[in-house]
Every structure is written in C-alpha cells, then in structure tokens.
C-alpha cells in the first residue's frame, strides 16, 4: 500500500522531468522551422539555430538528470523512514 504511493510519487517525478525535457526539446525543431530569424541571425559567423541545437541542450539534460536523481533518492529515503517508524 505504501509502496504503491511511493511508486506513484516516483512516476509523477519522472513524468514531471519528462515534461520539462519535452517542453524544451519538443518545441525546438518547430521553433527553428517556423521562426526564420533563428536561421538568419548569425552569432560569431554561425546561424543562431545551430548554436541553439548544439550548445545549451546537453547541459540542460545533465541538470535535469541530476535534479531528478536527487529528488528520487529523497523519495526513497522518506519511504525508508516511513517503514522504519512502523
């Protein structure tokens, strides 16, 4: 019973992270396709669209992943506390 709640909380956390990820990565191809300024604007001689594709995303993945792992460990720990108290 408690386990079900833990599972649901873990799932909610994963889905939340997934939504954050999806919002960023899901919008990007469409944005680059629809907004021509992203392609025309040059930054240091390279179109902004390429910068957007290459530079910010891997660090964002890393940050999302690290935040998720921390929260997931905390959820595990609070479950352990709960079981020990009973």
């Amino acid at each position, binding site marked *: 019973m408690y386990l079900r709640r833990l599972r649901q909380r873990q799932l909610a956390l994963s889905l939340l992270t997934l939504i954050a990820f999806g919002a960023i990565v899901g919008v990007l*191809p469409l944005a680059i396709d629809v907004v021509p300024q992203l*392609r025309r604007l040059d930054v240091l001689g390279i179109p902004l669209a390429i910068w957007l594709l290459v530079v910010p995303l*891997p660090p964002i993945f890393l940050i999302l992943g690290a935040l998720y792992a921390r929260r997931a460990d905390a959820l595990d720990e609070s*479950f352990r506390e709960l079981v020990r108290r009973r």
Partner: protein
Amino acid sequence: MIAILAVAAVTIGTVGLGAMGTRLARTTSDLLVASRAVTAWWNAAAISGEYLSAASFLGIAGLEMQNGTTALWQSLGFTAGYLCLLLFVAAPLRRFGSYTISDFAEARLRSPRLRGLASGTVLLIGGFYLVPQLKGAGLTLNVVTGAPYFVGVLAVGLIVSLNVGLGGMRGITYVQAFQFWLKVFAIALPACLLLIHLGGLPARAALFGDEFPSAGAKGLAVPLSAPQPVTFPAATRYTVVVSSRGRSTARAFDAFAGERTTLPAGRLLLAPHAAVPVASGTTALRGSEWARPVGGGGERSPVFVYSLLIATFLGTMGLPHILVRFYTNPDGPAARHTTVRVLGLLGLFYIFPGIYGALGRVLVPQLYVTGATDTVVLRLPQAAWPGTVGNVLGAITAAGAFAAFLSTSSGLLVSIAGTISHDVWPRVSRERTTTVAIRRLRFRLAAVLGMLAPIVVAFFAQGVDIAVLVGWAFALAASTFCPLFLLGIWWTRLTAAGAACGMVAGAVLATSGILVGLALGEPGGVAGALLAQPAIVSVPIAFLAMIAVSLGSTERPAPDAEMLALHAPEGLDLPDLGVRDPFVLGPRAGA
C-alpha cells in the same frame, strides 16, 4: 602506414585486454563482486564506451556532411536516450535484478513464451545494429589500407567473433572505460587542432551562404574506381580522363544545372570553384539549406526530425548490450547516479562529430561525388593538413573508429550469442540438461552464427548511410522494448498477452516501414520521411496495443511481488516474495 599501425595496436590491445580480463574475471559473479568496488564515474565511462559506436564516430559527421545539420538531432537523441533510461528504467531494473531483456520479460510477466518473443527481438535489433558497425569497419580498412570493402567487413566480423567466442565475455569495466576516453581523445584532438590550424571554419559561403560545395581555388581531381552516376547541381565544365591500354585520353564536357549522367571509371577533373556533382540518390544542398537544422522535405522535414528524436530517445533503453552494463551498479540509486554521469560524458563526446561534418563539406567535397561521406572523419585530417601532422591525426581518428566498432560489436555479439545459445538452441534441440562444456561450445558456435547474417547484410548495405542504419535499430528498439519496460515497470495491469501483442505490432510496423521505404527507393515527402523513420507511428501503436490487449485479456495480473522488487528502496529487510533472482539461476551460458 601510421594509420595501419594505430588500427592494429587498438585491435590487439582490445582483444588482448579482453582475454586478460576473462582470465581475471572468470565467472559472472566474480565480475559482479569486483564491480562493487567500481565507482560511478568508472561505470559511467564504461557504459558510454560501449555505447559510442560507428554511428557516433563516423555516421553523424557523414550524415551531417550529406544531409546538413539535421544530422545533429541524432547526437542529441543519442544523449537524451539516457535521460529516459534514467527517469523510468535505470533504478527499478537494477533492483529487479534482471540483466537481460529476456530475463526481465520472463520474470516480470511470468511467461516463458514472452521470453521467446523477447529473445527473437533481441536478435533482430542486435543484427540491425551490427550491420552499420561492420560497414564502418569495411570503410575504415578501405581508407587505411586500400583493401576492398568486403575484406574489412569479413576481417572485423571474424575478429569480433573469435574474441567473443574464445571467451572474451566482455571487456571488464576498466577496458570499456578506457575505450571511452580513447574515443573522446581520438575525435576531440584532431578536431581542435584542425580548427586551430585552419583558423576557424573556412568558406562560410558553402556552409551557410548560397553556394554548393565547390572544387576550391585549385580545382579538384577525383579518382573513380567504378562508373559513377551523378547529378550536377549547377552548370559546370568538367574533364574526364580515362586510361585504357596504357594510354589516357581526356575529354571535356559541359554539364547543365540538374544534368544526370554516369561518369566512367578514371579521373574526374573539375575547374576551380566549380560546383561539385553529387552521387545520384543524394541531393546537393546550398549552404543555407545545409545549415538549416530542420525544414524542407523528406529527411529534413519536421516530421522526420520528431520521429528520429522519438526513436533515439526511447530506443536507447531497448539496446541489448547497454542494459547488461547497468548490472555492474551496486544498487538502484547508484544506477541513477551513474546514468547522470553518462549524460555528461556523452554530451562531451558529441560536441565534436559535428565539426568534422562542417569541415568536410569544405575540404573533402570529392566525397560527394562517390557518396562516401561516411568516411569524412577518416579523410579530413590528411586533406586539411597535408603532411606528417595530417597523417598522424588521420591515424588517430582511424584508431578511434576501430575502437568504436570493436567495443560496440563485441558487446552486441555477446548479447546475440548469449540469446542464441541460451534461448534458441534449447528449443531446437529439446534437451534439458547440459554440461558446462557443451554450453560453452554452444556459446562459441553461436558467436560465429550470430555474426553470419549481419556480415551478409553488410555486403549489400554499402550504399546506405551508417547513421540511417543505426536509426532503424533504434526505431525497432523504441517500438518493442520501450513499451515493454515502461508499462512493465510502472503499470500493474500489464499482461503477457498484451506485452506480446504490443511488441509484435511495433516490430512489424517498424520493420515493414523500413523495408517498404527501401523497396520504393526512399520516396520523398511526408510518407517517405515516415517510411525512413517510422518511430513516430510505430511507438504509439505499440503502446496502445499493449494497453488495449492487457485491459481486454481475462488474465488477472497480481504483480505485487514484482512491483516490490522493482520499486522498494534498498536497506529494508523485506521478506522474500518469490521473485526469481537471476543470481540463483546461475552464470549465463559461456560465462
């Protein structure tokens, strides 16, 4: 010459270390015990090392050169796949203790028949993934030694078969971790030095402006070993030199824009700044189109990009050789933290392939003529920096490429051979009790058998881009094992019948899309994009089929024990609820 030595050194080193590793870690449990002392960083490097294949090392740069910066989405998806693995699979699967996909399918749904289906799918995905590795090997040996394509395919197929079959179970963690840093070094150092040498990106007009790739200020001579059908993107004057019976004759032609013709074997001479013709079946892109990450038709359309992102994002968890590595994590949280580090390490590696694709467009445009853009990483150093430095850098990238497909195809073949000898063989021969010696022999035979089909397919796949081939393997994994894992881990009501239907539906859709696309000669438009990368259709359908059939079937799942094993945190003294622990099942065949 230096390149041959470098490739030989990498091969001998890998095989030798693998053999030593086996002697050190004789049984699976030894390996597991040893792994408790391995830190998350080592583990993460080992996972990344096994993951970075010919597709990452050669394929992305080749596809980028040919198709433009759309190819960079692929490296993004390859990295993001581990985020999905982290969010939904890593920790529960480590706790569950299944370390092959077949084990998971059988134990979670208590169905030996589902195990059979999962094993079949492992073979299919593994085979699909082996083909591009062999293709990369054929290309690399061709560039380095001039040997025909099929020699390289056969040679590496044989080396990997022997290595795996003769007990090189898999390089121990440290070998794979070392391979990762070797690959990062081999791709990063030449890229950085070349950028410094050239003073940044040259010839912006061809990269981002209105120009087609051009023959450069000195013109271009392209040797052709066989007649080559090409398309001229712009009106061009060109000369063809054909030699027969010791005499060479030169003839000049004028091509109009869009002209299709077949160049004879010999040498093609292009005037300075002439637009380079492209191999038929590919499209010449102007700089502005090339630099556009999404937009246009076919494999540049938004539908294709989204489909590719879905395939790579969801497919990573279904690759048979990756999952095994997670077992070397001591517990669930460690699996999580290892995966976070993998995200960082892969992000580091994928900075570099894109640089080769861009430089290749300017410096080795002759690859467009033959369509051999997959070799750009290997050929670029010599072209950009003629002389000793270029040769040394070229040797470094060749060695890195070899490391890439040796490690990946060994890992794949271990999974394939294990599946054949463990799941397929007993069904054929119907024998129940076997001795260790017979099992080991069986594993060795399976290691040879498992390599045969991919070698044959690789002979015919020479014209298909490495990155495209790998994209298919990911599409297949995403439409079969991804729904199995996500629903199996998080949804209590999944039944064996539902899982089977979903996997079959996904596999059939993905495979048929790919085959139909090939048969029709890769048609354009949205339909063509969907056939080339069917994940955006096949993945949702696989999920829906799994859910619908599970809800509809009369089977009543009661997976409390399995759910406890998947989700209960470590450090609680839980009663044994009867979930089968693979430790008890004993070492795997061949281990």
